[in-house]
């Protein structure tokens, strides 16, 4: 497999990659991918997941998912895709643990329950049912790199959310980093993460090593700008045109859009080959790539800013006056 520069940039799936990747890298890319024997092994474990990250991965375009798993990586284990069932499947993990393999990247999708291993088990080894936590700890200590995909594995996500009444969590669900406090976990959040983010980051690790990460260990090339900065509705915001209902024209800020505080490039990247975007379709950003998702303290996902006078005090005067006008005349009811 060889890639020219243009193809490589497509793989990375980013206009910003043009800046991030000089041509010398493309040469390295060619050499690395020419030899099947050098394709890096990837073990993908699903813990407390909904498989949404994996389904999102299937929506990879240019290259498509078939190319990714035959030309870029060797996907040793992935529960949703693998041909084997039962022992025929789990022997891959068993073999990796027992022979102390160190030649693979470990990708984890889903949070990891710590209150009891019984909350998520995957197959058996030597007649004993094995918890997802145990597999991940055993495989993770030897892995070349640890990658967490999706909001659950990166920050806890919905399985890691709090019970409102007690502040507790039902299963003690934690992100991958909690299991490996001394190792650097690359976090690719998103609920779901865009397939370009997953494949692009992986390729960067393979070819050039660790990508530049932000304070939450997210690759800057994908999470370095906010939704708001690139939003198609930014001109509306600047002119003070605010939507009063979902789907209307205008900035969605007053309906509770979290785009201002969310690092994510969806407004320019779009979902499933650029078909649509979260703010473009009129719904607002729900902040799924940020650590507080979905709790946001006690705010939750949807909150209409006109609902509270306290919030009115904290708003920019211009926005606040719009809100007052709306409160007096119009309705913001979602």
């Amino acid at each position, binding site marked *: 497999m060889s890639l020219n520069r243009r193809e490589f940039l497509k793989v990375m799936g980013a206009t910003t990659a043009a800046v991030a990747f000089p041509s010398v890298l493309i040469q390295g890319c060619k050499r690395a991918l020419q030899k*099947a024997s050098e394709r890096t092994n990837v073990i993908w474990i*699903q813990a*407390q*997941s*909904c*498989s*949404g990250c*994996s*389904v999102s991965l*299937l*929506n990879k375009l240019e290259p498509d998912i*078939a190319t990714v*798993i*035959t030309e870029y990586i*060797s*996907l040793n*284990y992935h*529960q*949703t*895709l693998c*041909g*084997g*069932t*039962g022992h*025929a*499947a789990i022997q*891959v993990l068993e073999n990796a643990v027992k*022979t102390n393999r160190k030649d693979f990247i470990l990708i984890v999708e889903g949070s990891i329950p710590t209150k009891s291993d*019984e*909350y*998520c*088990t*995957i*197959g*058996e080894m030597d007649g004993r049912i094995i918890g997802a936590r145990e597999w991940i700890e055993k495989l993770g200590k030897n892995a070349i790199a640890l990658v967490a995909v999706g909001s659950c594995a990166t920050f806890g996500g*919905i*399985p890691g959310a*709090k*019970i*409102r*009444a007690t502040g507790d969590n*039902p*299963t003690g*669900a934690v992100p991958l980093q909690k299991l490996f406090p001394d190792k650097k976990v690359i976090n690719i959040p998103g*609920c779901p993460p865009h397939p370009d983010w997953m494949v692009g980051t992986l390729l960067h690790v393979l070819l050039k090593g660790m990508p530049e990460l932000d304070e939450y260990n997210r690759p800057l090339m994908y999470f370095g700008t906010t939704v708001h900065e690139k939003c198609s509705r930014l001109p509306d915001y600047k002119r003070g045109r605010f939507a009063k209902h979902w*789907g209307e024209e205008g900035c969605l800020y007053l309906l509770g859009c979290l785009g201002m505080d969310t690092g994510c490039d969806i407004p320019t990247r779009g*979902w499933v080959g650029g*078909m*649509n975007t979260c703010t*473009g*379709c*009129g*719904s607002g950003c*729900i902040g799924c790539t940020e650590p507080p998702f*979905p709790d946001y303290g006690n705010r939750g*996902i*949807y*909150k209409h800013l006109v609902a509270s006078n306290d919030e009115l005090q904290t708003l920019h005067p211009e926005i606040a006056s719009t809100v007052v006008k709306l409160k007096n005349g119009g309705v913001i*009811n*979602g």
Partner: protein
Amino acid sequence: MAKVLLDPITRIEGHLSIEIDVQNGRVVDAKSKGDMFRGFEMILKGRNPVDANQITQRICGVCPVSHGIASSKCLDAAFGIVPNKNGRLLRNLVFSANYLQSHILHFYHLAALDYVDITAILKYNGSDKKLLALRDWAKNELEVKKGRQDAITAVAPFLPRYEGDFYIKDLDLNIAAIAHYVQALDMRMKAHQMVALFGGRVPHLIGLVPGGVTQVPTRSAIRQYRKLLKQVEEFVNEVYINDVIAVAKAYSDYFKIGRYTNFLSYGVFEENPEQTEFFFKRGVFDGKKLQEFDSSKIREQVRFARYNSGSNLHPYQGQTNPDPYKAGAYTWLKAPRYDGMPMEVGPLARVVVNYLGGNADVKKEVDALLKVFNADIDAVFSTLGRHAARAIECKLLCQRMYEWLDDLEVGEMPRSTYEIPDKGQGEGLTEAPRGALGHWIVVEDKKIANYQCVVPTTWFCGPRGDDGKLGPVEQALLGTPIADPRNPIEAARVVRSFDPCIACAVHVVEGDKEIGTFKIC
């Protein structure tokens, strides 16, 4: 007697294992085990009711649209609204597009490897570039990794697999199936593009709200949707249906394996403003006759499930506390019952209910397929019947989707408006691609006081009931011939034909409070 554990059941959503007892080459006992628990309903309490729409979609990444629709419908009911015309049509359009995605994914990428010999690609000598590349890749993998520590994962993730004399032998059929596996990856993505056009993104739609969706239907989006629909429809009619027939011809014994005869469908795809008529109708078949559906007859039993709270309760009274170490319990799935009976739900249930209920389109398609096999309706209550039902649903849906698209009011409001009431309650019943799905909500002080979901996989993968009677998958496995207990692929075929989704099935946890009383439609 040999105890055989199939753990994990791969190529499904989530963590499922099956334990079977094999005697004289046949399954004599089976236990279906859900191996994962998250606690969604505990997390939902006390939040903004509208958050439920986003949170419950995360129950499952394969069928988020189904949960989004069920949640929207129960919020509609609790808020006292119905979607406007565009809202109803757009919900149908995102939902049906995900049906196409889900059924295509299930047949080609989840189920097919139980029948198709993937190693046939090594013998390919045609001229298709993609297949040649696949062949060279597989050959190279086997050569390069031979004898190496990672030899066990050569041609991953397709190998290793259950080995034995049970895959298709015809080279051309195998090669065609492998080519279609690759083509289907593209088709399922096109279906997802259709979902994203009106749903904002997928998986986990951003654009579903009470009253409809947020995306105003534009002329260009409609054109794009239609173009994609045409491509997927061609694939369904010219490739998918024929591949199901080809597999059925090669494995006609599976018309008698994996049998089940109790069926339940809630009905799906609203066809009138009042939301009371459905494209696939609702009904119950108890193996003898078709009955009217009555949601007050639903119960959930927990004798063999890992919960230490009351059993045989209606979802309204759901009171469930997790107990990982409960004696005698073997699964995180509860055992739902309808009028005391276990029920299969899913495409086969919908097709049977509609066939017997006089749905002319369904009858025509089913009869045409039965004619190919010179079989009567009894043959559909089987492993192959489930695969055929999915293909039939795709064909019929494609036809109807053009009409929904034509009925859209371009540029008009895609939803009704709502205000969150101080108090309210609602029931949202729909059909996920894999079967009957219900959400129930109680709103107090504009917050979620209680939320309950009863999902398809709980219906069919659930354990024994309080009376000890087996769940549908457990029952369907009985009598399945197992040629080699070390490679029990026959059992895996039966289980996969149901299209289990375990993340959906084990999210259920309730507080100790009644969920309230509901009006039953």
